[in-house]
């Protein structure tokens, strides 16, 4: 069986090295190379490769960001490649993941590849590593993200969390209001709140989270509620239930 592989690295030479080494492995075919995280998410979703060589340090959306954006459960078997990141290496050790450390030898590469092949063959003794546990573990250490990946039609857009003015609940989605436009994200309010820095984002209502930097004023409203007026004029409600978080101000 031929394995269709995706190679993700922001450095052309690093991709070239993997491609070069894969020439010897006749059962693996590189179907696409991606130079950044966004391309990788797109590539994984569109091509459903059997195996992904994934660099960790990439600008904007890094390797872990790619796994999160695709969804750890939907991620194909992945071989992480990294130059140096003590943080990530510790996580790999904890979750007994195989990874490639740059620069790696030919032997080491083929050893890792042999192992990865076993993940890709169904009904084998070895299962692909549990990425969900890895991502959860990493998230506990660096819980807040600087960017969120949103889908718009067939495109992916990275939204800086600092640019989000407020977030509105919409059925099974949340709507991110960003400088005049808005994006839908398949996420729950609690889920998205957990990813945002609590020093900047607070929940004010069952269906609203605000960026504190974008609040202009608070006005007392009926029944213990408050009216929150945003810099762009949007009026939101701070319900009694969530008022205590603003205890220091109200």
């Amino acid at each position, binding site marked *: 069986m031929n394995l269709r592989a995706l190679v993700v690295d922001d450095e052309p030479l690093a991709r070239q090295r993997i491609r070069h080494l894969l020439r010897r492995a006749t059962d693996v075919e590189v179907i696409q190379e991606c130079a950044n995280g966004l391309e990788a998410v797109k590539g994984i979703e569109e091509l459903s490769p059997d195996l992904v060589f994934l660099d960790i340090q990439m600008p904007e959306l890094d390797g872990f960001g790619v796994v999160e954006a695709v969804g750890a459960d939907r991620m194909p078997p992945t071989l992480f490649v990294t130059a140096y990141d003590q943080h990530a290496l510790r996580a790999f050790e904890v979750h007994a993941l195989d990874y490639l450390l740059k620069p790696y030898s030919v032997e080491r590469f083929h050893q890792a590849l042999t192992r990865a092949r076993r993940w890709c063959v169904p009904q084998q003794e070895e299962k692909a590593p549990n990425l969900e546990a890895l991502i959860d573990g990493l998230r506990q250490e660096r819980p807040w993200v600087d960017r969120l990946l949103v889908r718009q039609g067939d495109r992916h857009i990275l939204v800086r969390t*600092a640019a989000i003015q407020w977030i509105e609940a919409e059925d099974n989605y949340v709507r991110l209001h960003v400088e005049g436009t808005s994006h839908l994200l398949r996420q729950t309010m609690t889920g998205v709140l957990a990813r945002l820095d609590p020093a900047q984002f607070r929940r004010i209502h069952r269906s609203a989270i605000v960026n504190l930097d974008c609040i202009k004023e608070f006005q007392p409203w009926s029944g213990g509620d408050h009216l929150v007026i945003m810099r762009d004029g949007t009026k939101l409600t701070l319900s009694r239930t969530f008022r205590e978080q603003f205890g220091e101000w109200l």
Partner: protein
Amino acid sequence: MEHVRPRWGWYWGIWALMGLYMTTWDLALYPSSSVLRLLVMNLAQNGVWGVLGLCLLGLANRRPIESFAWRHWPVWSLHLLASVAVAALGLFVAYCISLLVQSSEWKEPMTWAMVRKGLPRFYRAYFHTNLLFMWAVVAAFHGLRIYRKYKTREVEAARLEARFAEAQNLALRMQLQPHFLFNTLNSISALVHSNPDGADEMISRLGDFLRTTLDAPPDQLVSLRRELAFIRDYLAIEQIRFQDRLQVEIQIPTELMELRLPGFILQPLVENALKHGFADRPEGGTLSLRARREAGDLVLEIQDDGEGFVPGREGVGLANVRSRLGLLYKGRTQLELLGAPGRGTLVVLRIPQEASPAGEA
């Protein structure tokens, strides 16, 4: 006990001024007296007080008042007694001087009887003022002592801060380098197959880069020439790593090459420009490095044509550059970030040249 270095010019100057001041006072009281006589008398009297004040200073230097807590009462009492004694003695001598001056004016010899007759009245009139002077001497001593102590502490704190920043800076560079180093080695392992000459070039550039990093102590001023050589090595490696994506333009007039700047200050700024300027741009971009001289300062500009700096959180690299500049030049430098969405980021760094910075010693 730390020794308080005295400022004798000030000490005697103030006593002399007091003498002049009292002369004007006496002139108001005895307008018919000779100005010269009054001046000589007052200067002599203040001179005596100055000499006696030295006793108080000597005592204060040996047994300074460390605190006003009750349990320190022996020290205060000692100073109180000493100042009373010194004031009394000083007044006695001063009275003798004034009698001497008067007797020379009246052309009759000064006698012991004259001293005994006028002394009690003189004490009643001047003792309290004189005691205040002596307290002022003791207070001034302690004031100076506290000020010096505070200054010493401040200097020590600044030194500690500089040390800390140095250590931190070194640690940061060490953190940054492995990543860069291993990625570069990985690129070389790709190049040896596809482009042996490129691999060769990269190895020698990497060698130069590492040599410079290992050689130079942090926080020492280097010439722009040296800093630029380092940046060129760094950029050459990055250019090979990112292949055609990175264009570099360096426009630096040769006459600026000997100007001084803190070593390794440019690299984090250039790295920042590469990181934020070329992220998510498969087509790559251009990095420009320019220098000029403006009002004596060295002005450096690093420009990328990337997505544009968005004000907000600055990275660790930039914060480190700021703190180093702050310690070295105490606010005489400027680091400005100008960005426009989609039109790149311009970093302007201004390094003063005229005086040596605080950290250079």
